């Protein structure tokens, strides 16, 4: 029945999603295999508590006709305030808050992308790509992240909808960042988006997803899968800034396969959500491949940010860097969870891991769970970790220059995350700083 969002998951729902989308048989079969695996697989027995996720109370697919309109009055005050702070235009506010079903900027945006398209860049929603480039999709889909990777990749593989497909042809350097946020309408903004990026040999692109504005979602589960292929000598940067509303479980699997002398850079900013579990990874499969991860997370009241990275070195002369910065406040929990592994043939490889945590009050927590495995004797892994508190001394110094306590805290936090912020575009940097200042307000008595 149109307008009714159906809740719950069964084999029938999965079949229905596939047939509504008119998908090829292989995708339908893939979804069903994934679903079977999902039902068998237990929830992870490590990490944050996921026992409250109710898989039967989630809407897995909405037909494009379904109108999930919400009254502006139902949008929580905090979300509205954040829109104010960020200066989001009303049209976008409606969309982000789910008041309006469609955000109509696709036309305006596609002209910006024209240049890239002329060079053969493909940038489509995943659903469209499956129709237009079925063999390219089939060749890569689920190959880096098989459905059996974990329970949530299985769930995504069963019910995915939306997300982006990007192909950068050989030798093409895309100057302007490809931004997913503008392309998405409320439907495929969805909970289970699937993104596939292929950066062919010698190419470069910067892909940006998400936005600093809070995404107010009706459903409490977000389980995305992102697969990135970085071919020989290619470089891909993937920036995510997400600010989910406080009730969301954000469980995302992201992985890149990096070939000879390729470079993969993940920049990942996590704000909001109840629980985030996200460990973007790089499989360095070609000689000289390089992986980078810049991770920033903020855990506030009732939030658990469990984030990190995995760097798996599978070839000689590979290198990786992980820089993780986390801030915890008002009882929030931030954890760094990471893996660096040197395979027996990854000779002369190196990895540097740096995780810094800032704790703003005595109610909040920071944890570090690093795993390092070095299976050859010509490689090395460095790990540095620090936990700091905002000292009274710093606060007093800044207040003595006429700043309020919360302004002082805001400055200290902004300074702490500066090494990550400086790698973001100007507008993101400004918005993130504004968000942090907002979080600091009312945080001090």
């Amino acid at each position, binding site marked *: 029945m149109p307008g009714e969002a159906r809740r719950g998951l069964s084999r029938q729902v999965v079949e229905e999603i596939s047939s509504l989308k008119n998908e090829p048989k292989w995708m339908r079969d893939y979804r069903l295999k994934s679903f079977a695996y999902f039902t068998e697989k237990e929830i992870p027995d490590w990490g944050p508590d996921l026992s409250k996720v109710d898989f039967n109370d989630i809407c897995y697919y909405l037909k494009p006709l379904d109108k999930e309109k919400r009254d502006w009055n139902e949008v929580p005050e905090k979300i509205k305030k954040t829109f104010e702070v960020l200066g989001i235009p009303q049209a976008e506010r409606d969309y982000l808050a789910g008041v309006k079903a469609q955000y109509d900027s696709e036309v305006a945006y596609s002209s910006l992308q024209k240049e890239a398209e002329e060079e053969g860049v493909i940038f489509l929603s995943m659903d469209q790509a499956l129709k237009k480039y079925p063999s390219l999709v089939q060749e890569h889909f689920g190959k880096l992240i098989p459905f059996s990777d974990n329970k949530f990749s299985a769930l995504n593989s069963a019910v995915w909808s939306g997300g982006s497909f990007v192909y950068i042809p050989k030798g093409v350097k895309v100057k302007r960042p490809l931004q997913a946020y503008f392309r998405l309408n409320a439907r495929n903004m969805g909970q289970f988006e699937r993104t596939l990026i292929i950066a062919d040999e010698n190419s470069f692109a910067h892909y940006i997803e998400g936005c600093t504005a809070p995404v107010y979602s009706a459903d409490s589960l977000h389980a995305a899968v992102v697969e990135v292929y970085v071919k020989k000598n290619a470089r891909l940067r993937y920036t995510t800034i997400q600010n989910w509303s406080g009730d969301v479980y954000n469980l995302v699997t992201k992985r890149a396969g990096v070939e000879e002398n390729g470079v993969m850079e993940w920049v990942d900013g996590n704000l909001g959500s109840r629980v985030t579990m996200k460990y973007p990874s790089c499989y360095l499969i070609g000689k000289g491949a390089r992986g980078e991860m810049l991770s920033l997370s903020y855990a506030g009241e009732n939030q658990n940010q469990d984030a990190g990275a995995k760097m798996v070195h599978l070839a000689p002369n590979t290198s990786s860097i992980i820089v993780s910065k986390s801030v915890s406040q008002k009882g929030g929990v931030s954890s760094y969870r990471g893996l660096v592994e040197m395979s027996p043939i990854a000779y002369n490889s190196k990895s540097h891991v740096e995780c810094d945590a800032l704790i703003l009050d005595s109610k909040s927590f920071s944890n570090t769970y690093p795993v390092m495995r070095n299976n050859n004797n010509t490689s090395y892994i460095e790990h540095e970790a620090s936990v700091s508190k905002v000292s*009274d*001394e*710093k606060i*007093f*110094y*800044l*207040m*003595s*220059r*006429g*700043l*309020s*306590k919360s*302004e002082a805290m805001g*400055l*200290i936090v*902004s*300074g*702490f*995350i*500066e*090494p990550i912020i400086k790698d973001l575009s100007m507008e993101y940097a400004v918005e993130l700083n504004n968000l942090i200042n907002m979080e600091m307000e009312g945080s001090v008595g």
Partner: protein
Amino acid sequence: MLKVKELSVEIENNLILNNINLEIPDGEIHVLMGKNGSGKSTLAQTIMGNPMCKISSGEIYFKGKNISDLNTENRAKQGIFLSFQNPIEIPGVNIFGYLRTIYNQTHENKLSPVKFREHTKKYLEMLDLKDDIYNRFLNEGFSGGEKKKLELLQCLVLEPRLIILDEIDSGLDVEALKIIGEVLNRIENTTILIITHYARILKYLSPSRVHIMSEGTIIKSGDINLIDQIEEKGFK
């Protein structure tokens, strides 16, 4: 301008200041001298409102008003400035943005980045600083002399009515000392309290009064001649 009346202060339940009386009239320069640990810095920090320093009795008046219960932010906004003996490093905080923030927080007339750069040009010249200092982070990786210059730069930006200089002259080479002395000499309409061990900064300034502190209390006050006595006999 400033009046400290029968002030006693505790830090972590230890009595550090005991019944201090100090009055600095508008526009005068006073010097506070004394050995390490005599309580000079605690007095400065208490006037600035450091929550660590608990007033157990007495009051602090600024421009005729009792400010004993005012927090640090508001004391600064009223026009009190404390130059720290050991300025605090705040990593990642860009100096230009920071200076403009503190200026705009304390002035009615807010300045754009361009205007603020123009406004502060003369200050940089006075302190013999290059504007690449603006791209650095607050006190991070600064030498002792650079930190003290940056304290004074903040002071010039804020245009306070009362300046408390806690050992502005320690760790400075002769050249930097001269620059800082001259800058202080050029600041007009300000009342200054200089805390120091040495007389060497005083050759640039003409203090009206000198106070000697010992064991948390002011044991002697007098005119500039008191300094010569100290030079000869030490703090007695």
